[in-house]
């Protein structure tokens, strides 16, 4: 029995005094602060995740659909030749003729080439594949759908330019002028006034830019003038003839420069003044350039693009021929303003009008982008698909799993259950832990040096990639497996050993099943890291541009993250969408893998 020291206060007051209450309040306060910090941390993480996912989805979803043109191709056997010759037929010509057939009025080399560009350059390839795969189509009539060009697709997805329509019922007069390709549109009201206003704003903006350039010139003018003053004073002080001759020459040069700069300033200011005057004028019309927002007039089945505009009249060229010029169009005409000037986009007014016409005829429609999900890499965004990379990733991961899971689990079982605890095993353990922290590119270098250079395995092959990633994943699996083996209660081992099970039986029958959920979780974490890995695969050549879908473990292949990395480098807007879409596919792949792990975990856990 120990003596209790004399109480400084009565025992009953220890937990009820003022200071005790204050201590208690402080404890609760700490808890509240901690809880708030935790919630804030989760909130911030969720916000970032949401931001990331929304960006990726908004960017990527447009790539999941694509616009296909179903055209009336000439698939007669005369055109294609015999069954054996299909693959050699002139599909480029067939596609070209089909799209020209849609707009027979288009003549001339340049417009025809522009028209042909509406259809993807991959269309002949797809058409050939289709016919070689299904020769019964030869001679059949009916339409076949092929992808449109990437810019036509972007335009139809509203990513080239915004546009504004205005419908009118007031009458206008359409008059053909010149050779019939230009028209004058006259309205009885100032319906083009605000477009004219836009043009005038552009003139003012131009004038401001010109004046800014003039100011820059004025600064160099001042500099030259001060140079001249300097030369003159040095010339008057010059002593020998050689020096004064040199100075005179430089003075001449500076004076000439001054003259040209002064002339340039005058020209710029005159231009600016002219534009300002035109912008200020209430009556005069203005020519429309490709730096103005385009103005299209839809009337009498035709489309006219304005080239000169006043408040009430428009002169323009026909994008589509007008039915009967010279008539009075009483009702139902519309005016369209394209926000982005033609010079700022890669899809001209003419192409826009043709594409719209095909859509109106029901020949171009948006559909599921099967090309993206079934093709390999391509330089043409509309022909580029993610399937090659998905197959490459799958093959690589199969090798990774086949290599790292059995090796990792076996190593973990040996180290945890069988190995004696001595210096060597401690050293091995420390090294395994360190291996897990080695930067992945180092494994790539190892793969390059050992697998490619020493063993001379195939470059770009999934089996080599799988081996490199397998080595990288191995320590993760070993560590996770050891932790979950160690977490199995020793009483289970004793129970099995106590009835005469051997050590291996104990591990295989009792310990391993209990540790398996944890081992699987560790494996999935390792595999997820391997799936997202780019750097080591760059070293062993899996970054190559591979069009064919890999069919075996030794075919050249690339993987999803490398594909994303490569597409992110391409400048075309359509590739930016595909980059995000491929990220969505990669995330989907990850979610499927994790779901599988959760299901497997659940099933194994249900066993006990």
């Amino acid at each position, binding site marked *: 029995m120990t003596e209790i020291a004399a109480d400084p206060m009565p025992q009953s007051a220890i937990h009820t005094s003022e200071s005790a209450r204050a201590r208690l309040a402080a404890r609760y306060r700490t808890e509240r602060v901690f809880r708030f910090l935790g919630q804030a941390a989760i909130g911030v993480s969720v916000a970032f995740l949401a931001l990331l996912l929304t960006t990726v989805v908004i960017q990527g979803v447009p790539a999941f659909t694509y616009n296909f043109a179903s055209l009336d191709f000439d698939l007669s056997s005369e055109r294609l030749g015999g069954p054996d010759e299909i693959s050699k037929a002139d599909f480029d010509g067939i596609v070209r003729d089909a799209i020209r057939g849609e707009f027979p009025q288009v003549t001339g080399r340049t417009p025809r080439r522009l028209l042909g560009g509406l259809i993807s350059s991959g269309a002949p390839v797809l058409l050939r594949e289709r016919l070689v795969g299904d020769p019964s189509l030869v001679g059949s009539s009916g339409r076949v759908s092929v992808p449109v060009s990437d810019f036509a697709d972007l335009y139809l997805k509203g990513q080239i330019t915004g546009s504004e329509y205005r419908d009118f019922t007031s009458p206008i007069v359409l008059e053909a002028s010149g050779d019939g390709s230009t028209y004058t549109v006259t309205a009885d009201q100032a319906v083009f006034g605000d477009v004219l206003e836009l043009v005038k704003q552009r003139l003012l903006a131009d004038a401001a830019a010109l004046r800014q350039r003039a100011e820059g010139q004025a600064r160099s003018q001042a500099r030259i003038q001060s140079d001249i003053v300097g030369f003159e004073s040095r010339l008057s002080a010059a002593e020998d003839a050689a020096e004064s001759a040199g100075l005179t020459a430089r003075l001449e040069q500076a004076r000439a420069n001054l003259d040209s700069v002064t002339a340039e300033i005058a020209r710029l200011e005159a231009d600016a003044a002219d534009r300002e005057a035109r912008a200020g004028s209430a009556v005069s019309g203005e020519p429309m350039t490709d730096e103005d927002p385009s103005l299209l007039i839809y009337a009498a089945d035709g489309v006219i693009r304005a080239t000169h505009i006043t408040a009430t009249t428009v002169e323009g060229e026909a994008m589509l021929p007008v039915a009967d010029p010279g008539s009075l169009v009483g009702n139902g005409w519309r005016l369209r303003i394209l926000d982005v000037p033609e010079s700022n986009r890669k899809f001209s007014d003419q192409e826009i009008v043709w594409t719209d016409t095909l859509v109106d005829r029901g020949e171009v429609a948006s559909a599921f982008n099967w090309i993206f999900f079934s093709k390999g890499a391509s330089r043409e965004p509309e022909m580029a698909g993610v399937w090659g990379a998905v197959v490459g990733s799958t093959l690589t991961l199969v090798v990774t799993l086949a290599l790292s899971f059995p090796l990792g689990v076996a190593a973990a079982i040996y180290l945890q259950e069988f190995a004696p*605890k001595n210096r060597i095993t401690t050293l091995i353990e420390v090294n395994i832990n360190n291996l897990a922290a080695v930067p992945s590119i180092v494994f790539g270098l190892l793969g390059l040096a050992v697998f490619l250079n020493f063993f001379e395995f195939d470059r770009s092959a999934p089996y080599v990639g799988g081996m490199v990633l397998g080595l990288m994943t191995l320590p993760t699996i070993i560590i996770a497996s050891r932790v979950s083996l160690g977490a199995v209660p020793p009483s289970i081992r004793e129970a099995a*050993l106590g009835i005469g099970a051997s050590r291996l039986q104990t591990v295989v*029958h009792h310990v391993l099943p209990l540790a398996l959920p944890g081992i699987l979780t560790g494996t999935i974490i390792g595999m997820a890291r391997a799936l997202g890995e780019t750097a080591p695969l760059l070293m062993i050549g899996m970054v190559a541009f591979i069009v064919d879908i890999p069919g075996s473990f030794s075919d050249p292949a690339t993987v999803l993250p490398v594909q994303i990395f490569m597409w992110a480098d391409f400048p075309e807007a359509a590739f930016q969408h595909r980059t995000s879409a491929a990220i969505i596919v990669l995330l989907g792949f990850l979610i499927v893998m994790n779901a599988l792990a959760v299901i497997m975990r659940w099933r194994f856990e249900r066993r006990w």
Partner: protein
Amino acid sequence: MSVAVEMAQTAADVADVPKMRGRDVNVFYGDKQALFDIDLDIERNRVTSLIGPSGCGKSTFIRCLNRMNDTIDICRVTGDIRLDEQDIYDPGIDVVELRARVGMVFQKPNPFPKSIYENVAYGPRIHGMTRSKAELDELVTSSLRRAGLWDEVHDRLDQPGTGLSGGQQQRLCIARAIATSPEVLLMDEPCSALDPIATATIEELIDELRENFTIVIVTHSMQQAARVSQKTAFFHLGRLIEEGPTERIFTNPQNEKTQDYITGRIG
């Protein structure tokens, strides 16, 4: 020598010789010595109880009898322990076979996280004791019956063993241990985690099992030792202080420490 004489001779030997015998048993955990020169005989078809305060080495000793101490890396055992006159620490002895002959029930019930049936069937299965499913069913049934658990679980053999109550789990562990037909059954405080009713059930069970098995039980309860055992050994600080028939130990202890312990003055 005729067969009959030989058999008679063997029977006589068997009657004389203790089932297990420990001589000069010393156990070390690293540098620390846990048991000092233990000499103890385990009598055939008797219940031997080991008593003593916590940390006195009784569990360590019982774990020497089926070499469960082998699983502890730093543990070292010297001396001589014999099962039927055979040295169980002989390098030629198979530890798996030894543990099949010397079964063990642990302090905390530790059924496998599998069904009740699988818990009992596991031992016979790995030792190849049955040839058919029917035979195995029969063995599982009889083991559960002998462990007094059959009536409570016969309709839910496919349920997990971990879902039973503490006392049922411990009887399941006993059924599992006796299913492999061991010759000796070691019980390390089998009732310490159980309530008095479950304890009484298990004590009755021990009494019945004595007919077929040699039993060694470690217990903290003097009453339990007195109730179930015929022989008692008192351990203190790693030494065997006194051993003898249970009745004598409790009524007439020779050693002062034994006297103090059973009257509650040390421990």
